[in-house]
């Protein structure tokens, strides 16, 4: 995964290699933890979702692969996911961050609400990062999120920096 992080620049991106790495990581985790992955992670938990109105979840799947490969625990709320489900997952899991991925511009009004919904449940410290074809065209302030990731690796770099600043 580290090798792919260096290799997957804008001009050398290779989704297939990332997916194959993800498939290998999944098999290794299944082998190491036949009863399921541990509920805690040294690096923290990230709740991820593709919001309601968007069923294109490949970007989310890639983020999941890269997060797990980099030592994060991932709670995947799925695609076409209501905001209430995302916020409830954040309340339950107390994550480091919520990661939102989306292909369609029509989900932007939903994305803009997430930070405020988290704050309404005293989760204002939970970082919100966004990515995907539509969302990465916008600024963080326009989406009302903490960070807009150019790629899944970019998102992980941001989370690593957040962790370091809190340690």
């Amino acid at each position, binding site marked *: 995964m580290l090798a792919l992080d260096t290799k997957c620049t804008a001009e050398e991106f*290779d*989704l297939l290699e990332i997916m194959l790495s993800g*498939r290998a990581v999944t098999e290794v985790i299944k082998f190491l933890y036949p009863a399921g992955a541990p509920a805690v992670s040294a690096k923290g938990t990230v709740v991820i979702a593709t919001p309601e109105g968007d069923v294109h979840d490949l970007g989310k799947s890639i983020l999941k692969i890269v997060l797990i490969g980099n030592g994060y625990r991932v709670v995947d709320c799925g695609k076409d996911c209501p905001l209430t489900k995302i916020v409830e997952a954040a309340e339950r899991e107390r994550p480091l961050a919520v990661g939102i991925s989306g292909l369609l511009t029509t989900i932007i009004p939903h994305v803009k609400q997430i930070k405020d919904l988290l704050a309404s449940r005293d989760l204002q410290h939970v970082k919100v990062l966004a990515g995907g074809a539509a969302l990465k065209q916008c600024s963080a302030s326009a989406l009302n999120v903490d960070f807009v990731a150019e790629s899944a690796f970019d998102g992980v770099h941001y989370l690593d920096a957040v962790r370091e600043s809190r340690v």
Partner: protein
Amino acid sequence: MNSLERVVAAVGFQKTDRVPVIAQVFAHAATIQVVSVDEYVQDGETIARCQLKALARYGYDAVFSVMDVSVEAEAVGSVLQYRRNQYPFVERYAFSALDTWTAPEIPDPEKAGRMPEMLEAIRILREKLGDEVLVVGCIVGPFTLTTQLLGLETALYMAVDDFPRLEKIMDFATEVVIRFGKAQVRSGAHLPIVFNPSASPAVIPPKFFREFELPRLERVFQALTAAGASTNWLHIAGPTKPILPYYAQAGVGIANFDYCVDPVDAQNQLPGTCLGGNIRPMAFVECGPAEIEANARRLLKAFEVRRGFILSSGCEIPAESPPENVSAMVNSVRVGS
């Protein structure tokens, strides 16, 4: 010079009275007529009516019969889900990695799924516009159709696990889009745009594109040219810089380039091919007319000497875009002429 003549001249790098401008207005044409997107993509007459109204409103140089990227997949057997005011998406793929695969019959564009509605939209548009305005049909690229028949992840894993089968499905997909594209030309399209989002370097490596998608695109474009298409238009969004040099080999006459590709890089990569682009699509939603116009002016300046340019957005103009932003892009070519 009318719109069609202007576009044809730009493709040939000839002098034009002004730079052609083509707004990639698809679902936006429905939205401004208060028509639900799901109704729009299922009815040829509605597409034609909304496209003609949008043309009258904005005055750009082309109309589109574009529905969405699942028309061919649905005709083959993928099951779509239609939701209110959204583009449909594949709910159940026609093919599976687990089943034995034999090529089904190539769908008849006059009968299968929504293909006849697309042809109807083209017939109406051409009847109304003749050779005044470019009438653009739409097919998807072979790999995009493959991913709409299998699912993107399944298709990519198949590239590793069972490549001979993937190639057979890509060959089948190639025949499907060729038959549909030829029917569109017969129905009056000056050309079908070839949408190929799954062939973007954001999805497949450039080497995969060059070795496996490019030869099939060549077959598609050769067939469309033989059928009478005015030129060939390839639309791949995302970071296409690494694959642009191959477009000329495929027979591309108009190459779309997205907002993330530098206009100078695009010109260097494709010195003899007309380029169309590349205002950031989301700018049409989150910015105002002044910023759209500034972006348009920057592009017009970048292509001032070269010619061979169509002012456009990098990809589809979002349906919810304020109309004054579309007008700002269109009007910018007139101000400068």
